C-alpha cells in the first residue's frame, strides 16, 4: 500500500499530493452537481430560459447586478453558513456529528438580539461587541448541554441534536414573546436592532455598493483562522483530533474523551451561534420571524463543512462558493425560476461527496497512469 503511494508521490509530484487529490475530487463533484442542475433546468424550463438562467447562476448573478454588488452579497450571505459550516466541521474533527447547529444558531441570534436591544442604551457604540459575546456565550452553553448529554449520558447525537433544535426554536419564540422590548404583540416578527448593535461596515458599503457586506465576514474568517490554529498547534487540538480519529486510543493516552467531546461541542456551539449573531446583527432592519420552522442556515452548514473536508481554512472557500451560488440563485426570479435550483445543485454536490473517496482513488489511478515511466 505504502509503496504504491510513494511511487505516486514521486511520479505525480504536486499533482499526486493529498491536497490536490482532495481538491480535484471536490471540483469534479461540483461540476457534476452543476450539470445535473442544468439538466433539471432544461427539463423544467426549456432551452431558451434554462441556458441564460444557468449562466446567471455560475456567474453569481454578477452580470445582473454588477460586480461590486454581487461580490458584496456573496460576502454577506457567506457569513452565517461559514460559521455553521465551521461548527459542523469542527465537531466532526472530534468525531461528533453536530446536527444541533440550527438550534445553536438560533440561540446566538436571540442572544445577539437581546443584548443589542437591551444593552444599547448603556453601551452605545460598543453594543455590537456585547452582542457578539452574548451570542457566543448562549451558543456555547447550548452546545455544551448537548455535548454533555452525548458524552456523559451516551445519548445518540442525532436524536439529541434534533430535539435540542426544536427546544431552542420554541424557547427562543417564548423568550421573545415574553419580552416587550424585543417584540410587540400581534406581529409575527421581532423589532429591529438599533444602529449601535450592528457590526461596523468598515466602509465596505462603499466598496460593495448596493449590498449589506460588513465586517461580519472579516470576523468570520478570523474565527476560522483561530479554529485552524487550535486544531493545528494546541494541546487541545491534539486531544480533539486524537479523539475524533481513534477514541479508544485517546482514552488509552489518558485523554478524558468525554470531556473533550463536550468541549468540542461547546466550541462548535459558539461557532454556530456566532453565525446567528454575525448574520442578524450584520445588516440594518433585520427582523427575526417567529415560527415553527428551523432556519436553513444551520443545515446548510453541513454541505459547507463537507465540501471543505472539515478543514477550517477550506471551509472559508466552500462557504464563499455556496454563497456565490446562492446569490446567483437570487437572480433566478427574473427568469421565473425558483432560487431553490441552487439547493438542488448543492445537494447533488453533497451527494457525490458521500463517496468522494472513490473519486480520489480514480484520480490517483489516473495520475499513476499519466506519470508512469516518467519518474
Amino acid at each position, binding site marked *: *500500500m*505504502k*509503496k*504504491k*503511494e*510513494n511511487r505516486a508521490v514521486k511520479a505525480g509530484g504536486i499533482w499526486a499530493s493529498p491536497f490536490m487529490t482532495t481538491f480535484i475530487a471536490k471540483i469534479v463533484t461540483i461540476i457534476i452537481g452543476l450539470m445535473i442542475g442544468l439538466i433539471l433546468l432544461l427539463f423544467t424550463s426549456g432551452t431558451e430560459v434554462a441556458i441564460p438562467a444557468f449562466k446567471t447562476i455560475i456567474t453569481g448573478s454578477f452580470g445582473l447586478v454588477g460586480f461590486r454588488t454581487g461580490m458584496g452579497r456573496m460576502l454577506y450571505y457567506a457569513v452565517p453558513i461559514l460559521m455553521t459550516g465551521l461548527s459542523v466541521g469542527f465537531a466532526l474533527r472530534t468525531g461528533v456529528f453536530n446536527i444541533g447547529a440550527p438550534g445553536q444558531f438560533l440561540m446566538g441570534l436571540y442572544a445577539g438580539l437581546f443584548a443589542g436591544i437591551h444593552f444599547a442604551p448603556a453601551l452605545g457604540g460598543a453594543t455590537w461587541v456585547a452582542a457578539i459575546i452574548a451570542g457566543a456565550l448562549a451558543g456555547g452553553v447550548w452546545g455544551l448541554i448537548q455535548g454533555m448529554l452525548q458524552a456523559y449520558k451516551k445519548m445518540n447525537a442525532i436524536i439529541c441534536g434534533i430535539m435540542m433544535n426544536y427546544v431552542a426554536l420554541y424557547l427562543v419564540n417564548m423568550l421573545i414573546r415574553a419580552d416587550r422590548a424585543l417584540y410587540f404583540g400581534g406581529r409575527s416578527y421581532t423589532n429591529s436592532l438599533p444602529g449601535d448593535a450592528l457590526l461596523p461596515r468598515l466602509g465596505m458599503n462603499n466598496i460593495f455598493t448596493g449590498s449589506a457586506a460588513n465586517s461580519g465576514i472579516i470576523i468570520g474568517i478570523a474565527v476560522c483562522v483561530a479554529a485552524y490554529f487550535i486544531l493545528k*498547534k*494546541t*494541546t*487541545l*487540538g*491534539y*486531544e480533539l*483530533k*486524537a479523539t475524533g*480519529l*481513534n477514541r*479508544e*486510543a*485517546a*482514552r*488509552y*493516552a*489518558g*485523554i*478524558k474523551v468525554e470531556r473533550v467531546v463536550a468541549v468540542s461541542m461547546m466550541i462548535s456551539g459558539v461557532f454556530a451561534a456566532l453565525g446567528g449573531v454575525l448574520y442578524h446583527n450584520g445588516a440594518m432592519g433585520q427582523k427575526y420571524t417567529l415560527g415553527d420552522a428551523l432556519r436553513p442556515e444551520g443545515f446548510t452548514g453541513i454541505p459547507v463543512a463537507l465540501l471543505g473536508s472539515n478543514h477550517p481554512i477550506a471551509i472559508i472557500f466552500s462557504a464563499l462558493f455556496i454563497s456565490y451560488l446562492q446569490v446567483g440563485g437570487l437572480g433566478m426570479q427574473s427568469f421565473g425560476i425558483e432560487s431553490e435550483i441552487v439547493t438542488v445543485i448543492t445537494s447533488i454536490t453533497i451527494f457525490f461527496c458521500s463517496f468522494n473517496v472513490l473519486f480520489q482513488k480514480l484520480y490517483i489511478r489516473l495520475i499513476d497512469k499519466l506519470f508512469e515511466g516518467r519518474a
Partner: protein
Amino acid sequence: MSEYVFEMKNITKKFPGITANDDITLQVRKQDVYALLGENGAGKSTLMNVLFGLYQPESGEILINGEHVKIRNPGDANAYGIGMVHQHFKLVHNFTALQNIVLGVETTKRGMLDLGKAREKLIELTNRYQLKVDLDMPVEDMTVGMQQRVEILKMLYRENDILIFDEPTAVLTPQETEELMKSIEGLVAEGKSIVFISHKLNEIIRIANRCTVLRRGKVVGAVDIEGMTKEQLSEMMVGRKIMLKPEKADVKRGEVLMSVRGLTVGGAKGHENSVKDVSFDLHAGEILCVAGIDGNGQTELVYGLTGLRGVGGGSILFGNDDVSGADIRYRNARHISHIPEDRHKHGLVLDYSIYENMILQTYFEKTVSHNGLIDNRKAFKYAEEMIERYDIRCAQGAGTVTRGMSGGNQQKVIVAREIERHSSVLIAVQPTRGMDVGAIEFIHKQLLRMREEGRGILLISLELEEVMNISDRILVMYEGEFVGELYPDKTNFQELGLYMAGAKRDVFAGGAH
C-alpha cells in the same frame, strides 16, 4: 473418481503490496486430516478463503472430485460441500444457535419460517457427534467452545464433506482442544475430509496425517506426518532454528515496584467479575509473566491496572501511592508504560504521523509543549531519534502516517514510545503477536534490556514458548484467578498446560509473598 476430494492447483492471490499465495498447490484425499502449517502471515488463511469463495485468486484452478469448478462466493463453496470454521467465528451474536445454524438455508412453510425439522435433524447430529449445544441459547451467552461447536454443526447441517478449521484451538482450553480433536476423529470416521490450519506443532502431530508447510506465501513442502518430528516441521515452517533462547543476563531481583492486593475487575456489561481478588508483587529487574488461555481475565487485569476500566476493589500500590482509583493519565505519567494488546484499537492513532503518535501520552508535558501549544518541531526531532534507535522503517521519516506502515513497524513505534517514557513498570500485552521472527527477537531484546536497567516488566502472553524463554517468574491465570506460580527453569510445558487448563491449582495466599 479422482484420488483427491479436492485439489488447488497453482493458486496465486495478490493483495496490494504483497503476494499472499504464490503458486500454491494443495491436494487432499478423502478422510484426510490435512494440516496447513505456517507462521502468521504465511498465507494459510488466504488460501482457505480462496477455497471458500471469499477471495478470487489471480490465477490457478480448483478441482472437486477431479472436476474443475469455479467458486465465486461462499454459496458456491457450500454447494460443493465445503464448510469452514473461521478463526473469528461467523456467528450473529443475538441469534440463537438454531437460527445461526440454519441461516441461509432456512426451511419455510407457506412463507413462514419452519424450523421444526431442522431442530430434529440437529438433535440427531448433536447426539451422533457428541457436540453439546443448547440450540435455543443466543450465541453471545455461549462459551467460546460452544460457539465453535455451533460452527461445526453449521457445516454438518449443510452436509458439507470438506471441513476447514482455521486455527481452531487458539481460543480453547486444553480440555476443549482435546474434545475438538475427538470430534474431528469422529468426523473423519464418518467419511469427512478435514483441513486443519495451525502453527501449533503438537496438535498437528497429534491429529493430522498429512501436512503442507507454507512460508511467506510459498509451499515449502508437503509431507506425511508419520515419521516427522516437531523439530523437522518447525524448521520447515520458519526456515531456521526458531526462537533461539535469548541471552539472559543475571539480574538480581530488586525491590518491589508494584504491589497489587485483592484486585477485582468487572467483566463486560452484566457479566460477573473477570478478575477476582488477585494479588501479586512486581519487582525491579524482573520479567513477570501472566500466562493463560485467552479470555481468562488477562485483558481485564491489564485494563484494571492501567485504568482503562474501573476496578471493583483492591489496591495497586507503587510505594505508598495507591493508584487503584486514579485516572489513566495519572498512572501513565507517574508509573506505568503500556504496550497494549490491540495496537490498532489502543496503541496508535493510525491517521496521526509517527511523531504525533510518539507524544501520545506526553503531548502536554514541558518536553514538547509550552502554554498549551505543541512544539511540533521538537516532537518531530524526538521521533526522528526514535526511528533511528529502534530501526523503524518508514517512507517519509517522522512525518509518515502510521496507517500505511507494516504491522511490525507500527508495533516498533509503540514499543519505542513506551520504553522511552522511562516508567518504572512496563505492562506488555502480547507484544510480539503477529510479528516475524526478526521483530520478535528485537522486541525480546528490548524487554531484556529494560530488565537489566532495573525496571519491572509485566508480560501478558499466550505463547508458551515466549513465556518459558524470557520470563523470570510465571503466574498462571485461570478464570480470573491466579492458580499457580511457576519458575521457567523448574517447570515444563506439560505442567504449565495443566495449570492453564485449571486441572491443577495451588492455594497460595493471594499470590504474593
